[in-house]
């Protein structure tokens, strides 16, 4: 078994929308609460809105019906109308963790005739495993989990 680090492949999605890049970017970021699937909130209260603060370092959070805020992550790159980089900081246990970061990059590419292609990539997925590793390592031998998860990721990826 080689020592190199093998990671699960990023999730990549593309979709073409019938609008210009500026509006696609604006709706993606500024009206996220309008289109974000409601079944995927992590707060105790039902989701009322989702906010992406329009600047690098801006917060990405959910507002519940009760007015509570629940952090999801932050803005790592803010380059309207072409590129957005978000830090998804919800871990594998459905908890916000400021030390846990996976990246969601969204690119908006203008096509002919007022269409825009939206390419989304959610990467660093191996860190979900690392995170569980953090918890488990306290009751286990050092280096045990990371190695296993890497082996597993390598085999899994090779078979894709």
């Amino acid at each position, binding site marked *: *078994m080689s020592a190199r680090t093998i990671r699960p492949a990023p999730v990549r999605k593309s979709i073409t929308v019938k609008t210009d890049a500026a*509006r*696609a970017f604006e709706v993606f970021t500024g009206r996220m609460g309008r*289109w974000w699937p409601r079944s*995927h909130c992590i707060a105790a209260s039902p989701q009322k809105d989702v906010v992406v603060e329009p600047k690098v370092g801006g917060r990405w959070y959910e507002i519940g019906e009760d007015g509570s805020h629940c952090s999801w992550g932050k803005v790592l790159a803010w380059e309207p109308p072409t590129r957005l980089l978000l830090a998804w900081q919800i871990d594998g246990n459905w908890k916000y963790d400021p030390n846990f970061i996976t990246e969601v990059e969204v690119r908006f590419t203008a096509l002919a005739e007022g269409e825009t292609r*939206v390419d989304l990539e959610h990467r660093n997925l191996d860190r979900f495993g690392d995170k569980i590793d953090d918890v488990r390592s306290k009751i286990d031998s050092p280096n045990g989990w990371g190695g296993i998860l890497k082996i597993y990721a390598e*085999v899994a990826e090779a078979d894709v």
Partner: protein
Amino acid sequence: MTDAAAALAALADPTRRQIFERLASGPRAVGEIARGLPVTRPAVSQHLAVLKSAGLVRDQAAGTRRIYEIDPKGLGTIRAWLDQFWDTALASFKDELEGTKGNR
């Protein structure tokens, strides 16, 4: 997420971890896996059953033997969830942009 937790729980046992690591180098029959391990062959079979139910390994019959290997689909629980999630989210985003309220 739950499946991933189950997978990690299954690997919390040192013997199961050893078995799993042996399979990392390729598919093996039960007898081969058991060789050199300080547990009985039936015990190895039980451990394999746990790994299988956690989605970590899969098996197939080869004559009278069962061959075990790492299940490549097991890893992807979180990944598969995200894959499906982003499909749903982007479709909803497109609807928001192109639906009646979204048209300019």
